[in-house]
């Protein structure tokens, strides 16, 4: 049980008659401090593990997190996430050419150039590289360049239709 030794020491002190000082338990104090240290380190590891999961969220969901996830995070975790986003964006912008390279795209090897997608929610107008725009209305289906759709698929706006 956690804190058993510490409780024992405190009880010992209470049990002693008023003013009487029980012998100093070097062992007891050492054991309690060791336990505190172990608990602290475990807590740090858990806290750090949460951070690793939050980092993964940026790669899975993009820079805007869904609301219910946001409520699961502490203010400090949110601050960490915002800093991480910024750092990542700075780095990606620095990669070759003027616009940089978005590493959160192209997570899978390209199998085909164009893919059939169905729109799951209204998303408004969407421009593809030859200048034409497509209206992403709920339930509409389109044949679009894969790389343009990747992020929208991950966000749940589009669904890849596998025929």
């Amino acid at each position, binding site marked *: 049980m956690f804190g058993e030794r510490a409780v024992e020491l405190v009880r010992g002190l209470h049990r002693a008659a008023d003013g009487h000082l029980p012998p100093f338990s070097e062992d007891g104090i050492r054991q309690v401090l060791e336990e505190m240290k172990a608990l602290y380190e475990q807590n740090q590891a858990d806290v750090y593990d949460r951070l690793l999961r939050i980092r993964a969220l940026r790669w899975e969901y993009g820079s805007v997190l869904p609301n219910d996830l946001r409520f699961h995070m502490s203010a400090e975790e949110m601050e*960490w996430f915002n800093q*991480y986003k910024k750092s990542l964006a700075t*780095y990606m912008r*620095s990669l*070759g050419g003027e616009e940089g*390279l978005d590493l959160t795209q*192209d997570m899978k090897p390209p199998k085909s150039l164009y893919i059939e997608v169905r729109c799951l929610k209204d998303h408004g107008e969407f421009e593809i590289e030859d200048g034409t725009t497509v209206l992403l209305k709920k339930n509409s289906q389109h044949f679009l360049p894969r790389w343009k759709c990747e992020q929208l698929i991950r966000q749940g706006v589009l669904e890849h239709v596998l025929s």
Partner: protein
Amino acid sequence: MAAGPALRELDSDGSSEELVLTPAQLLGGLEQESNLKRAKHGDLKVSIHRMEIERIRYVLSSYLRCRLAKIEKFFPHILEKEKSRAEGEPSILSPEEFAFAKEYMANTETYLKNMALKHMPPNLQKVDLLRLVPKPNLDAFVFLRVQERQENILVEPETDEQREYVIDLEEGSQHLIRYKTIAPLVASGAVQLI
């Protein structure tokens, strides 16, 4: 395709836990090619070129993602290694990666310190990142292909009964060996991880 050998070099970074240096020119060359092809409009073969660009972009992104993931995974150890780097020795990080790593460290340190200050008694507030974050496992076994013949490579014994012994690595041969044994050969390009 000219990017063939360049792409093969990028693959080797996925095979080990350590950050493997790749010349910046390699990356620059790939990016240039990709930008050049993007400029060709109205070409009859535009879709074939597009496919090639997609593939290059995927491999390049994959490679850079892998490096970033390793930097984040082992950041205090990597930054410690950078700090103790000798004057003339080349860095294993690009300047941008180094900036990213430092920011990541500062961000994580600040966060852990804030958490500690908020919840813990003062005598336990020291944050030791070097202990908290696991080190890369250099004892892991890796597959490699020999590019340049190597002689007298010292192999450590596995058990108490064994003694250390030397082997020669013939050009073109493939081996399964502890990363630690051949780490300098990976850095020099004498062997390639597969």
